[in-house]
């Protein structure tokens, strides 16, 4: 017991509070991954493991002393940082300088953009009290009808408009069943996903015979801030980003302002927290929810359209491949807040970008980076890193009296 007393005394001194030790653990967890990256580039797995275990220990220490958020975060970061650092070293010795370049930032933004659009859409829907598992389906609709529209109208603007309409229509189906018919929202969302898979697949075969999307469909332009001869850090990371990437960042700010600084946002949130009270003060709960769900469909479809019209410039069957579910994860990970979701989307985008770059050197290790968003979200909902607090009335159908 005396040893515990000693430790406690050390902890009680101002510098080594359990909180500061937890923060130190978080830093060490990040370091565990960073030592594997270019400036340091350690060649043995020892260092990531060492730092990772240290972070884990500090995290557990802080966790058991009441600092659950900081401690949990440190423990998770310790494990994730250590394993990822070791994997990065194993999978691509001597090639890491080619993986972690300035253009990785550009790549991260590319993969984060569809997630951001869909996640912001998801936030609007869920803040108004309607669970939207159907984000994946709405993205897929946007992806297919976006490229079809760009092909038929000959302009990417037309493609985006048609994508928005298609996503909005699918969301309208979800809204009708969830709001008017008071069907189970999760079942409805699942149905919407199946429907989108079927509809896009069917018409992809019907219209393009399952393969022949014309080459050279009008593409969403890049915003060139740097000259093409410039190869500096800024030019490589932010110089030639697609228009939609900048729009996504703008959207995050706008969504935050709308949700938290305007009467409309207050109404949306009121419908998601206590619809009866909202109804009592004269808010049209059905109307607000309809608007929010349709908006979520429109935004998710924009994210999908960015994938095909902006990035790939072609279409494959089921091109979204689970990105809608990562967006859903970003909503939860970001605690139903626009900036939180954007941060999560960046994190998940980064892990996808790393996965794709690593796949050249080590095919199977890269898949673990693909799984990272799901693992992190699982840990987040398990309440280890803080607590995710969904809107109080989310998933509850509301019945007017």
């Amino acid at each position: 017991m005396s040893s515990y007393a000693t430790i406690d005394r050390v902890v009680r001194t101002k510098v080594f509070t359990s909180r500061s030790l937890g923060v130190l653990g978080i830093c060490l967890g990040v370091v565990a991954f960073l030592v594997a990256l270019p400036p340091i580039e350690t060649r043995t797995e020892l260092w990531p493991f060492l730092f990772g275990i240290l972070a884990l220990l500090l995290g557990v220490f802080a966790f058991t002393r009441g600092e659950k958020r900081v401690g949990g975060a440190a423990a998770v970061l310790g494990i994730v940082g250590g394993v990822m650092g070791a994997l990065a070293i194993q999978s691509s010795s001597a090639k890491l300088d080619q993986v972690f370049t300035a253009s990785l930032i550009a790549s991260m933004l590319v993969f984060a953009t569809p997630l951001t659009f869909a996640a912001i859409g998801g936030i609007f829907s869920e803040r108004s009290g309607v669970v939207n598992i159907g984000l994946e389906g709405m993205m897929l609709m946007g992806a297919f009808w976006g490229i079809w529209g760009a092909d038929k109208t000959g302009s990417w603007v037309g493609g985006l408009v048609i994508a928005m309409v298609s996503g909005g229509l699918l969301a309208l189906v979800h809204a009708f069943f969830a709001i008017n018919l008071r069907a189970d929202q999760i079942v409805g969302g699942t149905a919407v996903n199946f429907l989108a898979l079927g509809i896009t697949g069917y018409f992809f075969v019907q219209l393009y015979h399952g393969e022949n999307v014309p080459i050279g469909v009008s593409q969403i332009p890049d915003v060139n801030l740097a000259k093409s001869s410039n190869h500096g850090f800024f030019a490589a990371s932010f110089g030639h980003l697609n228009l939609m990437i900048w729009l996504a960042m703008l959207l995050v700010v706008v969504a935050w302002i709308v949700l938290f600084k305007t009467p409309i946002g207050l109404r949306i949130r009121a419908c998601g927290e206590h619809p009866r009270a909202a109804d009592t003060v004269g808010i049209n709960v059905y109307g607000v929810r309809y608007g929010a769900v349709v908006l979520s469909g429109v935004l998710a479809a924009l994210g999908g359209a960015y994938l095909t019209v902006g990035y790939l410039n072609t279409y494959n069957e089921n091109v979204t491949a689970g990105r809608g579910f990562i967006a859903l994860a970003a909503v939860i990970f970001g605690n139903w807040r626009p900036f939180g979701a954007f941060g999560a989307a960046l994190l998940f985008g980064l892990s996808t970008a790393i996965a794709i770059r690593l796949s050249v050197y080590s095919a199977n290790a890269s898949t673990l980076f693909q799984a990272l968003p799901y693992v992190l979200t699982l840990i987040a909902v398990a309440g280890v890193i803080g607590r995710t607090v969904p809107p109080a009335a989310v998933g509850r159908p509301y019945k007017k009296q």
Partner: protein
Amino acid sequence: MSEPLVPPGPGVPPEIQQEPPATVASRLAVWEQAGGIATPLFTALLAFMIGGLVVLATGHNPIQAYWDILKGAGLDWLAHPTHTDVADTSAYNFSQTLLQTSTLVLTGLAVAFAFRCGLFNIGGNGQYLVGLYCANWVGVSFVNMTRPAHILLGIGAATLAGAVWAAIAGFLKAAVGAHEVITTIMLNWIAYWMGNYIFHQGGPLQGPQNIPLNIPISGDVAHSARLPVFWGDADLQGLHIGFFIAIGCLVLFWLILNRTTLGYEVRAVGFNPDAAAYAGIKVRTNYVRAMAISGAFAGLAGGMDMLGYLYKFGTIDVQATTIGFLGIAVALLGRNTAVGVGLAALLFGGLLYGTTHGLQSGTIDPSLAGHLTEIIQGLVVLFVGADVIILYIWQGRKKLKRERRETDDAGQVPV
């Protein structure tokens, strides 16, 4: 359902006016009321009709298309069931439909069992996948075992893997209240990428090839681990004894739910967790237990498929499998009962095979028809979810009946 029990009025205290939250149990009660086979039939018919409209709108003949799908599913074999030789196309197609049905029965049960406990197990696909992986691992390794032992070990490992995978979600629900829909979705994708890792180039279980391939591919399951085939040829994807296992599981499902204490507790929690807790039932334990049993069904489906006819990854694109998701439609259409799940599995099994491999038609392209299945599946789930419409219709009819009875009574002359 969510109708307030007491009509709102000035004399009613506000806490009674507040409607109770919609639970799975209350929805189930609606199904119980709406009753019978009429509503699922109506739902399926409506879905097929809208699917037909899509076919019509894109310039194909829907009636001819559905007839071809029916033949593709081998249902015309039922007209002459004595021709059991699989050289006969319809007999072969029917055996393939039953093969799909066996899997769908189990993935359907996986969703249905959790539903009866008030949980929505959307992770059937992940549980199915880990079942596939484990069965493949056992089937490829341990080559010196005797056949029954090897098969039992493979099936057992797959079942256990599915149970554990689902129990993670059940545990998180019980321990911290994490919503099972979110956790099972995440677990689905973790299972998916885990498979990519294990069987990919450099992965621990990639099959032995001359050159390592840059795709997920596994080794072949040893002959000692393959399930016996009782109808057709094992090399031609014959119908294996897993069909009987699936039927057995339907019976088991019914027995567990209706004839055991465990089943009683599961249903009690499903109807009303608060009331169940008040009655002394451990709600959290039941969440974990129900999820584990659900996952066991899905894992078993994976094990059966791997040892029954797939034998390896790469023969067909298992990565793109959605059979676990199809279980949701099967369970919902089958109203989460044993008989219903069996029938719904047969419907979707026929649809699945009849629209893809079995379809030989000039009317509709198989790749087109395959997506028609997905549309119909989506519509079925959508309409089943909207039980309230059916409730309205049903209540309206009941009310009408009651009124008629009352007027009849009034019209009778008292003796």
